[in-house]
């Protein structure tokens, strides 16, 4: 996966280019900022403005502005409050 944020868009045809490494396969996670939420899903944005729909059940309730660590379309940790 060349970029987790862009490749994880809620499109019908996800792509996974392996030339620069696959973030999923490489156990890489990306930090994203929550833009808004719909049920258990959150629309999130990275530093380049790319957006992705993320499942948030594993990190509790999130709101706009919260920063979360995302792996394979799922938030695995909240970034606020971790020292």
């Amino acid at each position: 996966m060349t970029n987790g944020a862009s490749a994880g868009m809620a499109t019908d045809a996800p792509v996974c280019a392996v030339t620069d490494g696959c973030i999923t396969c490489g156990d890489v996670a990306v930090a994203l900022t929550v833009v808004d939420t719909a049920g258990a899903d959150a629309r999130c944005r990275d530093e380049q403005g790319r957006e992705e729909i993320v499942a948030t059940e594993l990190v509790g309730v999130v709101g706009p502005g919260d920063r979360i660590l995302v792996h394979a379309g799922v938030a695995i940790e909240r970034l606020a409050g971790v020292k």
Partner: protein
Amino acid sequence: MTGMRFVDEFRDPELAQMLGTQITALVDPGRHYKIMEVCGGHTHTIYRYGVQDHLPENIELVHGPGCPVCVIPMGRVDDGIAIAERDGVILTCFGDMMRVPGGRGSFLEANAAGADIRMVYSPLDALRIARQNPDRQVVFYAIGFETTAPSTALTVLRAKQEGITNFSIFCNHVTIIPAIKAILDSPDLRLDAFLGPGHVSTVIGCRPYEFIPRDHGKPLVCAGFEPLDLLQSVYMIMQQLATGRAEVENQYGRVVHYDGNPTALAVLGDVFSLRPFFEWRGLGSISHSALQLSERYAEFDAELRYDLPGVRVADPKACQCGEVLKGVLKPWECKVFGTACTPETPIGTCMVSSEGACAAYYNYGQYAKQRIHLEV
């Protein structure tokens, strides 16, 4: 060029040089140190950014088994192909899996022969494909350590909640602690310390590593993935070694809680159970080292839904991925590295994923560098 917030400060070359100097000051010149980076993501960072170049020559970074693609045995690839060849099946998998060679070829080759195998970014994408294709059976080929297993577990929970019946999981998730134990028990390798896998630790926390200093007297530092994360982690390890300490420390505190993510752990405990045994490529069969769907979610278990070959396939004789995965051999010491085995035509899994040690060496020029050293 605009800088990247939260990233640039972890790639500062002056700070890297300063850390390298501080690490050098802690080194005993008469001693050779071997530090294993467990995670394939760390291997990728080390070679992409030349982290080793900031370390004194007597600190050797040894690559561990933490690339999830690299530890998939060939027989499990063949099982995936057998599923994909069934009428009406769509097999989905992460990108790197497409080129992993099995005994009967790769997913990419199976696709060319008529199977329907699709790359996805998330298991949730596989579930969406199942919703969109109610007349097809959609199987997700799940791989990965504890970083990735929660996304599979969450997908199974959503599938059950929605009553989706044309979706299942071929589960190959593995757990990191038994692999570290296997390495510590290996007579082939003497290690001084470990760089712990940062994102796995996000889920499991740091506590599961406490047996390493307690029972084996070796430090472990949970490390982030930027170059300065790794250098600072090596510095923390060297401080421990220089003062005779052996502890679990957390360098990646901006992301990792010492106790991990309890919600994710609870979901993992609900959806999965431990397999009695699982074969790891290069490490052999390791007890209680992999996950399977628990009985509560058996309806989503592809291994119960389909009759699979389940045949153990021996690695090609020329391939020495096993020794590379255990850190016994450096990639360029493998007989076929860079000749018969390249990223374009991989023989072993370590050459497939860019997080694999062989591909990292090949792609970032360490091969040429080491050859020069050997020839001098």
